[in-house]
């Protein structure tokens, strides 16, 4: 809406300017030569209002470009040069043309009006430029000063009419002129925008301003001499003619002052540039603090900005995740070189003692790149050093105090940004792991048998409590027909989803092998063979596989690295520990040779107990193990009760013991009790 309004208003300005120009043109046709009060007054009113609207229109254009003052100045300069050219050429050769035409001549009217229009347009533009530059980057509103000056411009211009009307009172004009020039001088001092130019622009401005100042001064001379052009303009409108003069004076003074101001600014230009660069880099970086999601990208930006902030040739970033320092990003230096440089620095300096920015000078023959000096800034967050930011220069200038301050401030920001990026990465990783754990737990629950088999001669109880991170426990029963029961308990090394997958595979292997092979030793040998393809080098599976003859109560059992089975008879606990190494530790004959098979003849009320190390290795808050002794004690205490009571009390004791320390491994407990008498009523 607003822009529509502006466009409309701009259009209106142009419309008015054109309308007034046409009226002026028509008036000039009717009355080309005005020397008496009334026609002159009308003439001046029309000229001034036309000029006013042209200026309003050009101000729109110029205002749009106010952030590139140099191009504005250049535009004004070009127009001024054209004025100079026109004035000079007319003075030289075209006098005759206008002299030949008399004032009453019709052609003269048209030609002089167009000639004046060209000047009006050029003056309007130059005036707009001056006004825009005046208001540029002003802190307080200086409108009053400028408007006062304009007022005197007007007074001086209008009083020029007195040469026709009352030539005696010419001194009034002179008085106004003096005041105007004073005001011009006062207003021209307001050029704060020069400070914000970069050094290159300042040099450029210095050259332009001196040229323009001279050009405007020459134009003052040209426009006040008695040549044909001036005569034409004076006849057209005394005010306009005077305004041309004033504007040329303004230009000469204004650019003269700009020249000197720029000259004084020049020595500090470089320092100012650097400060501005630092400030803008810090602003950029503080923006990064909230934006960056990618550690690598952040590290790259930091090194790049470091080279800008302290004007160094190269920069690199060492970040210390988990205590080990490693190279995170480089700018203008190879990874290998930066790495070598860092080891060189750490060999020469005790890095831990660098708590603020430190500069070092290096012997060039020692190092791969020809650096002369280095600045090492620690990346500190909460008084902990998380890395180092290093800037290097090849030139002889060492890093001075200002450089060090800049790098230090920058490193502080960078440290926080890096910390944020790392925390974010960690939390994303954590979320991913939690999702993974959910999947692993789901797999595990599908693998563990839903219920224990119902067998006359045997009471079976099983408990399985998964750890927060799936621990890879697995147990299963296989009803093999012919009154035989196969059973397995296994513990996959490692945790999480990888353990869950191996567990699933293990289940498949035992499920199929148990139906093909009877001997537990051979079942485990075969399982080891099959697992070879799916286990990586650091994974293994411990297992006990057993086969129970339900007619005789004989158990054949082999153990592959698993915690021993327990045989409980008459309040005594015996560990069943035939030799055998874990599945996946070795795939040669060694494994087969290591395996033994043992045979247990169960008597009435004998208990066979299988478990995983989640029980004996359950830890309390002092990191003390639950241990085998406690386990044995509970077993003996509850051995007379039902096996469900036994398993409940074991779990209860383990839970009480490990209160305050999260369960870190799965807990599995499988208990068999041989109760033949229940069924055949032996006594």
């Amino acid at each position, binding site marked *: 809406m607003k822009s529509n309004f502006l466009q409309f208003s701009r259009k209106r300005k142009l419309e008015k300017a054109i309308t007034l120009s046409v009226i002026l043109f028509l008036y000039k046709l009717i009355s080309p030569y005005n020397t008496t009060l009334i026609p002159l007054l009308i003439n001046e009113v029309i000229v001034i209002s036309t000029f006013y609207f042209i200026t309003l229109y050009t101000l729109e254009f110029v205002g749009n470009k106010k952030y590139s003052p140099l191009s504005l100045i250049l535009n004004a300069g070009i127009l001024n040069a054209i004025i100079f050219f026109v004035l000079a050429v007319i003075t030289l050769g075209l006098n005759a043309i206008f002299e030949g035409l008399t004032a009453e001549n019709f052609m003269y009217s048209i030609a002089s009006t167009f000639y004046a229009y060209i000047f009006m347009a050029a003056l309007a533009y130059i005036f707009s430029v001056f006004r825009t530059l005046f208001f540029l980057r002003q802190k307080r509103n200086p409108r009053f000063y400028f408007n006062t000056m304009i007022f005197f411009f007007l007074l001086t211009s209008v009083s020029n009419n007195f040469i026709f009307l009352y030539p005696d009172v010419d001194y009034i004009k002179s008085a106004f002129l003096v005041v105007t020039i004073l005001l011009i001088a006062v207003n021209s001092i307001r050029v704060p925008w020069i400070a914000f130019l970069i050094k290159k622009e300042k040099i450029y401005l210095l050259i332009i301003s001196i040229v323009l100042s001279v050009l405007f001064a020459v134009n003052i001379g040209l426009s006040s001499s008695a040549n044909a052009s001036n005569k034409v303009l004076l006849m057209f409108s005394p005010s306009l003619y005077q305004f041309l003069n004033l504007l040329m004076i303004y230009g000469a003074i204004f650019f003269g002052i700009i020249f000197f101001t720029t000259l004084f600014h020049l020595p500090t230009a470089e320092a100012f540039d650097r400060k501005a660069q630092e400030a803008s880099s810090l602003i950029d970086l503080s923006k990064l603090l909230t934006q960056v999601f990618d550690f690598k990208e952040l590290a790259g930006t930091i090194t790049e900005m470091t080279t800008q902030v302290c004007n160094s040739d190269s920069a690199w970033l060492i970040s210390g995740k988990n205590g*080990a320092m490693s190279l995170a990003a480089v700018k203008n230096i190879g990874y290998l070189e930066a790495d070598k440089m860092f080891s060189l620095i750490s060999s020469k300096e005790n890095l831990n003692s660098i708590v603020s920015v430190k500069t070092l000078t290096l012997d060039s023959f020692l190092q791969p790149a020809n650096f002369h000096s280095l600045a090492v800034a620690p990346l500190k967050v909460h008084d902990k050093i998380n890395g180092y930011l290093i800037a290097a220069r090849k030139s002889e200038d060492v890093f001075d105090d200002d450089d060090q301050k800049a790098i230090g401030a920058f490193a502080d920001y960078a440290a926080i940004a890096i910390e944020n990026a790392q925390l974010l990465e960690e939390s994303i990783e954590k979320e991913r792991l939690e999702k993974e754990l959910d999947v692993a737990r789901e797999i595990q629950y599908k693998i563990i048998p839903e219920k224990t088999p119902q067998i006359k001669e045997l009471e079976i109880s099983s408990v399985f409590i998964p750890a927060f*991170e799936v621990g890879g426990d697995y147990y299963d029963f296989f009803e093999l027909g012919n009154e035989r029961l196969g059973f397995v308990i296994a513990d996959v*090394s490692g945790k999480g989803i990888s353990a869950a997958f191996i567990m699933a595979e293990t289940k498949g292997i035992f499920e199929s092998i148990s139906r093909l092979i009877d001997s537990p030793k051979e079942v485990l040998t075969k399982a080891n063979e099959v697992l070879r393809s799916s286990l990586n*080098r*650091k994974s*293994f599976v411990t297992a006990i596989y057993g086969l129970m003859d339900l007619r005789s109560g004989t158990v054949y059992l082999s153990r592959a690295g*698993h915690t021993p089975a327990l045989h409980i008879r008459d309040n005594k606990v015996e560990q069943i520990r035939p030799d055998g*190494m874990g599945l996946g530790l070795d795939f040669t004959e060694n494994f087969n040779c290591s395996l033994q098979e043992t045979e247990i003849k169960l008597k009435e009320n004998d208990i066979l107990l299988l478990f995983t190390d989640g029980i004996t290795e359950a830890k309390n808050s002092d*990191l003390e193990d639950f241990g085998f002794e406690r386990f044995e004690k509970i077993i003996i205490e509850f051995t007379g009760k039902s096996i469900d009571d036994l398993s409940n009390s074991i779990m209860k004791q383990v839970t009480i013991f490990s209160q305050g320390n999260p369960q870190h491994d799965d807990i599995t407990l499988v208990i068999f009790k041989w109760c033949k008498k229940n069924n055949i009523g032996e006594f």
Partner: protein
Amino acid sequence: MAEFNVATREDSLVNVIDLKGYLDAHTAPELENVFTRLIDEKKYKVVVNLEQLNYISSAGLGVFMAYIEPMRNNEGDIKFTNLSPKVYNIFDLLGFPLLYEFYKDEKEAILKFNQKSAD
């Protein structure tokens, strides 16, 4: 939080790794880094001193399994020394003594390496 610490030193061309505290799935990567570094530096003769190790989980045992092959392929080995009975029991249950050499004393293990290279 259970603490864990791993340090390396060299004793007559043999690299001794001292483990301290609790070696489990969370601390195992630290030990893995040490082994990776040793292999990068072509140091294949390793004695692991477990005198101050309180606990080792399956993930911790897995680290040794992962690195034994490159060590042995380069005429090196991983030998364990100074195990507490409790920690030895964990190794023993799993059958490690069938695959790895265990010594009561670190000197013994180092001597064994040097004898072998003298042959």
